[in-house]
């Protein structure tokens, strides 16, 4: 059972295994997706999260299962950590009817009502107002829980970012904003898009307590998320975390990645969140020597199953194309 009642991280072996297992699931799942993309099993846009795993894992570890998550088009990792079955996520990547969004959304639009996973939003900054509204609903319904919203630093230039922060602060809403600052919005480096490159200070202007954290260090991220989410749950209004991170791969499979230096990428890879954590945990004796290998074996098995499931799944029949554009009319028509 996940311990969410504590506002501090307790690094038992069990928890350390869980953190590493979740990061490994994302990493290997996405490596597989890249391979499947070249085989044309996955099409359209595919945005990989490789390098940024510590953020989804650290933050979502601090959330209760019913605390809503709003994410972007780079959301495979968030969906997996939230608990969507890998088979459903993989089937979605293929566009099969057994996928989490019936295959209609693909990589960018993973949704799961039963996991309170609200996507899968591919309009940059489009998720922030939704998160504000989900939190507003909780507040008006008297439900004490947080809503967590993930977005990139590119979103911080959009009006919707500023309008949402203001609303959340003004109305004192239980939102945890998590900016995954990977330094690039497509090919635009942070310094070329923000007059003030510190994103966390933006939140401060709206009176939102904010914290910048090392987004390559899963323990730091989880610790910050626990502090923040507890404050949010206590009714202290919104909180903001800026996680400083890096994507190891190109923006999408269409991106030739010509706007940054190879040396910069290599330097960041030295701080790979998976090795950073597992090396430390091993040396500290939190993880046992065999744990890493066992996790890899389990994850490989899970991925094989998910790919097999997605391969075997059916396509949605063309006749169903127009279903669910709108809901069925309620039965009690006047």
């Amino acid at each position: 059972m996940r311990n969410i009642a504590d506002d501090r991280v307790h690094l038992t072996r069990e928890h350390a295994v869980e953190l590493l297992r979740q990061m490994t699931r994302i990493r290997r799942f996405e490596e597989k997706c890249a391979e499947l993309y070249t085989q044309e099993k996955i099409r359209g846009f595919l945005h990989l999260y490789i390098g940024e795993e510590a953020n989804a894992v650290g933050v979502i570890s601090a959330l209760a299962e019913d605390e809503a998550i709003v994410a972007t088009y780079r959301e495979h990792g968030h969906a997996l950590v939230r608990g969507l079955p890998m088979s459903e996520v993989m089937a979605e990547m293929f566009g099969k009817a057994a996928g989490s969004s019936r295959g209609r959304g693909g990589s960018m639009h993973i949704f799961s009502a039963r996991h309170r996973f609200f996507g899968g939003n591919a309009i940059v900054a489009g998720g922030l107002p939704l998160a504000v509204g989900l939190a507003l609903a909780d507040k008006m319904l008297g439900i004490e829980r947080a809503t967590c919203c993930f977005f990139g630093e590119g979103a911080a230039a959009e009006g919707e970012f500023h309008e949402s922060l203001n609303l959340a602060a003004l109305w004192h809403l239980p939102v945890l904003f998590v900016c995954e600052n990977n330094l690039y919005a497509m090919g635009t480096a942070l310094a070329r898009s923000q007059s003030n490159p510190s994103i966390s200070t933006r939140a401060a202007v709206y009176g939102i307590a904010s914290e910048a954290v090392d987004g390559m260090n899963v323990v730091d991220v989880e610790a910050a998320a626990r502090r923040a989410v507890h404050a949010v749950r206590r009714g202290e209004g919104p909180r903001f975390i800026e996680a400083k991170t890096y994507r190891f791969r190109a923006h999408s499979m269409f991106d030739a990645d010509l706007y940054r230096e190879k040396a910069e990428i290599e330097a960041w890879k030295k701080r790979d969140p998976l090795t950073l954590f597992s090396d430390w945990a091993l040396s500290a004796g939190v993880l046992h020597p065999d744990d890493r290998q066992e996790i890899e074996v389990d994850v490989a098995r899970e991925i094989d199953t998910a790919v097999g499931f997605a391969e075997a799944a059916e396509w949605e029949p063309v006749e169903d194309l127009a279903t669910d554009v709108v809901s069925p009319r309620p039965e009690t028509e006047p």
Partner: protein
Amino acid sequence: MTVRRMNYREAVREALREALARDKRVFLMGEDVNRYGGAYACSLGLPAEFGDERIRDAPLSESAFVGAGIGAALGGMRPIVEIMTINFSLLALDQIVNSAATLRHMSGGQFSVPIVIRMATGAGRQLAAQHSHSLEGWYGHIPGIRVLAPATVADARGMLWPALLDPDPVVIMEHATLYNDEDELPAEGDMSVDITKAAKRREGSDATVIAHSASVKKALNAAEMLAGEGIDCEVIDLRILRPLDDETIVASVRKTHRAVIVDEAWRSGSLAAEISSRITEQAFYDLDGAVERVCSAEVPIPYPKHLEQAALPQPQSIAAAVRKAMRR
């Protein structure tokens, strides 16, 4: 005359280069136009020639940089603003509709806004419901702007300069599936094209198929299929979505007596609806039957290929509509 081959993307790039070289007031502004080279690689290489000031990367802030483009146009510049796709242009719709399109009339003719806004539109690349829509008909609804839809390499090359000469806002819709299309263009000379007239892409006598953008190719494919059945289609490429060239459309329908309109947008409240109305208003007694329309299924565009293709107009569905119009 010597000719050369180029694709639609290269044609856009060459048109940008020409404009930047011809007029110092011209600059290109948008997300990822500089370091990345443009989301569709249209401005790749241009920063080296024209510098960071004139190939200006803008942050993710569509409303602000489109609005700034409008302001710069008021201030004496000739901005070309690139919006990655029409889907994101919705964040800038306020500036386009409430400022760019209104300023001239609302100010009693004192100000005009010589801005060109380019954006990619359309479906067909499995990009799902937030990256695939054809909303150009919405722009066609707005008085005060001119809306262009280059369907050919020649138009991609030749529409930009005349658009910049237009004293009012011009929006250019580039269909995302066209960028790799190749064609021959003259090696030299003035590439500018007329931006007031529709074009006849195929001469025919039995039915008029009216299309724009990527649908023109589909209409031509349908016409080839039908030629084998003894049906001779005329294909009109709208080119200009606002103001519509009624004259060319109506003249063709008067000749063929049958009209089929192809539009990748949804049928309800569409450009296809507008054209159909104009045909019945202006050529009702020349028609041998009802105007037919082939539009996208009224659904947000789905990701899987089979569903996406089923949602879009296809040569087969266009041919079927022509047969229906011919009562065949």
